[in-house]
């Protein structure tokens, strides 16, 4: 497809991945991971993998984020690392 869109989404994906590992609030890291998952789904839809994009949208940006938030809710939310 249009390679400019793909380059912009790739840069956003790398920024989100670094951000999810660097923030000190675990709930914010879970939400950033949900956004990263959704950007990956867009990348795969651009490359023509519609089945994989559908699966990643429902699993990554849906169930996986909810499981992370539930686990963070039951344990602690801050981290110094």
């Amino acid at each position, binding site marked *: 497809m249009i390679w400019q869109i793909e380059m912009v989404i790739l840069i956003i994906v790398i920024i989100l991945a670094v951000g999810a590992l660097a923030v000190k609030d675990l709930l914010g890291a879970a939400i950033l991971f949900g956004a990263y998952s959704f950007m990956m789904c867009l990348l795969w839809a651009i490359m023509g993998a*519609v*089945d994989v*994009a*559908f*699966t990643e949208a*429902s*699993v990554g940006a*849906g*169930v996986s984020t*909810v*499981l992370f*938030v*539930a*686990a963070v*809710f*039951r344990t602690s939310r801050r981290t110094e690392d």
Partner: protein
Amino acid sequence: MKIGGLILVVILGSVLIYGSLEFPTWGDPASPASRHVSLYYIEKSVEDTSVPNLVTAVLADYRGYDTMFETIVIFAAGIGCIFLLRIFRKEETETRLYRHIATGITLRIKKGVKFPEASAAFERIDSVWVPHDFIVKTTCRLIVPFIQIFGLYVIAHGHHSPGGGFQGGVILGAAMILYAVAFNLRSAIRRMNERFTVVLSTIGVFIYAGTGVLCVLLGFNYLDYSALARVFGVDPVMARSHGILIVEIGVGIAVMAVMVTLYYNLASAGKHDEGL
């Protein structure tokens, strides 16, 4: 630890980048991955199985063994979560909180004291309680049936459009999780309790494995769906299409039950009394 990790990652990354110089260019139709077997799949799928969606045909028919073991993996994850986390003894070790609906006074009932579970004047609340939110509850009650219909559509229409068993199962599970988040966990467990989810996940795995055993009993190979031609009364090509639909339904049921089980156990840390 961080410096060592950084050095290791940089070395490994540069080795991989050096290896990537040998790759074929992006989008080359003559690359080694696009010859041999996948040529056969693209050209002969529709006349072998009459399923236009190539990914579903390859996933459920040509590579059916892998999908069966993938279903067993996700079933094992659900069972493992139950065994690791679930607390079965119903001892009243904590205080429970009840709220008088008319005046808003909260009662804290200590352990060992009896209190009627379902009474008209008091409701049981979680330790993190928010007031009744009309918009969220009404929207959830309106939307959940449509989400479930869409999930069933995705499972049944996997032959012609992107979708299939796994995606539809996750969407069905997400509808139940939405109900549990908008209301509270206890009302969701009342609608779909733990025993029901476990039984559903085993039924899903048995549908998949049982179709294969049925094909063996009819005299063909394991998971060779053309054996079902005599059962359905159609020619072998359409029998393979119907066989794909049956195993997709099995995968969808198993995945829905496991997603709901994972949410119940993770949101309540095994106790199933209060959730997110």
